């Protein structure tokens, strides 16, 4: 299960982040550690970026990158 499998408003817990080193690093630096709760806030049409809430921030992540964030 990944970030995009959540429906808007649903909360998941991060288990692992795939993808290249840059993406992994950036996401962890922004606080998306494994074990952190994340809520999918909204999706945009045509697989545009998704908005998530993690810790105290709202972030926009592109659809392809969101697919790489695995949840427990």
């Amino acid at each position, binding site marked *: 299960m990944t970030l995009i499998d959540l429906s808007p408003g649903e909360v998941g817990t991060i288990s692992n982040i795939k993808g290249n080193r840059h993406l992994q690093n950036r996401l962890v630096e922004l606080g998306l550690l494994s074990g952190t709760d994340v809520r999918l806030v909204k999706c*945009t049409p045509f697989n545009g970026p998704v908005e998530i809430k993690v810790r105290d921030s709202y972030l926009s992540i592109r659809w392809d990158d969101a697919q790489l964030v695995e949840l427990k």
Partner: protein
Amino acid sequence: MKKSHFFKPAQKLTQDSHWVALVGNPNCGKTAIFNLLTGLHQKVSNYPGITVEKKEGTVYAQGDKTFNLLDLPGTYSLSAESFDEQIVSDQVLSWAKGENPPAVIVSVVDASNLSRNLYLTTQLLDLDIPTIVVLNMMDQLKDSSQIEIQKLKKELGVSAVVPISAKMNWGLDALKSAIQKSLVNVAQTNHQSQWINQDISHQIKLLIEPHFSSSKFAAAHALRRISRNESLNGENSNIEAIRNSILELGYNTDTLEATLRYKWIDGILPFVQPKIRTKIQKETRSERWDKILTHPWMGPAIFMAILYFIFQSIFTWASIPMDWIQAGIDNIAIFVLSNMSPGMLRDILVEGIIGGVGAIVIFLPQILILSFFLTVLEDTGYMARVAFMLDKSMTKMGLHGKSILPLMSAYACAIPGIMSTRTIDSWKERLVTILILPLMSCSARLPVYTLLISAFIPPITVGGYFNLQGLTLVVMYFLGTVTALILAKIFSQFIKEKSSSSFVMELPPYRVPITRSVIRQVFIRGKLFLVNAGKIIMAISILLWFLASYPKVDSSLTDVNPIHHSYAGKIGHAMEPIIRPLGFDWKIGIGLLTSFAAREVMVSTMATIYNVEDRGDETVNLREAMRNDVDEKTGVPVYTPLIALALMVFYVFAAQCMATFAIVRQETNSWKWPLFMIAYLTILAYAGAFIVYRGGLLLGYS
């Protein structure tokens, strides 16, 4: 406040040892704090070789004690790789090696987003330079998230934690005195943040470099090496072995530093914010607003309405101060003309310098109004939502959600547009944005369109509602924009991605902008525009004035306009065979040439050629003169509506504003891209005008 200080920038403010660095996350209010602390005592320059703005300023506190402050670009981390962020990590790396480090680091933290902001703070603490943590946005905190200031100070081991609110303008004096106190009490610093554990520090011993003054920073740097898989002294086997043993300990080597730091931060947070409960489900006020503002169809509709309002105001409100400026420049020119004896110096002053500088100053109201709106949209947090909504459609065209801001700016002037592409992390998407920006019809084209439309397009109503003149203007803007988007798609197929940054973007909470900060931002934008563009335009104006005025001929000997015999006239005649297929004659040739200084110079050039009085109502007279101009031999009108249309299409595409290419050279750090732009724009302009003129002739128009 000593205003003169601003115009006479202090030399190398941060060269003396008593300087202070301001570091923080994007959207933490760092720039507002910088503006409030330094007032107008600022100097904005570029970092050598690259064009990220370097903002330095001087802080005047009570008494004589002052210190200099450097505002670094906002960054989330020291291991980041986008343009702005690279500056910060390079700077900090040099401080760690003992190269002109600041006496005090001020780490600005958004109190309403503590854990993520403290991440960067812990990276800075590694340097063991005296650090003051500023908790900004304290006014936003609810009771449940109150921060225990003394506990935080103790856990981090910093010299001071200062709660402030830049918005409410409180706590800034306390911050000033805390900085001054740290500058006086120079003590050995050893910060407490023991985020790295024994197991790891044991593993990385071999990667510790001796030239760092702090052992904690050396360890952090070693971890960044491990994550980048970058060996020390080229010993690859070494780093592989270290990576493997760290993996065996159960850590991800790619994200090691970030994981360890967050573990440490998450460990101290319960003490620092005892009442906090993570409420990921809780909707903030911004999230509720976004239900409308980023709604799938209401969001874009609201954005279109805002855009419409901005452009409406640029073109209506700005015309009033623009008229004043024009009148002022005319008066100065008349004053000089009547008070100086005729001669070369007077000519160069009036026609070269006053004319040239006037041509650029006239756009200041538009630039200021546009920067005001863009600063407000940016500071409220709305611009990030626009980027979020449009990201998908923009990426489809090879651009980035963040390209929307530069594209909008470019309708006023390509230069601030190009400068605002810096926030785009991806090199490829940033370059593509820069390459197509000159196609957005900037305000300098407006005088040219206005002249040609009023002279040659009949003011009739078509299709029942549309005024043909207004419709022509809209078509010109549309032509530029659509071509820009098509070319963006094409260019993005051929340009390779150079940076490997991700596309994660923060949607900061909506905030009421701080008036003083906005005013200062607009003021600084305006000054940068005048200085950057002014220098180039002034030089070119003087050159063009020279070309158009020399060699001098005795006007009593010939009744022909002296410009015929000038260098410019000769160049115009030489150009004629090339531009004849487009329907243009040598006079337009000169206009195209002088447009290199600035497009609107075309109008004053034509005025000079036709010898019309250059005072106030020039366009009316020039319009008549151009309409009535007939070929000496055949008696056929020189200009027709079709030629005017071809000329307008030429102006939509042509590479004319030299200042733009100078800025592109700066921003891309190579001549390759500005030269490419000049080439493709010239081909496009020629082909466009050719198709319009020749196609029109074939269809029987004239």
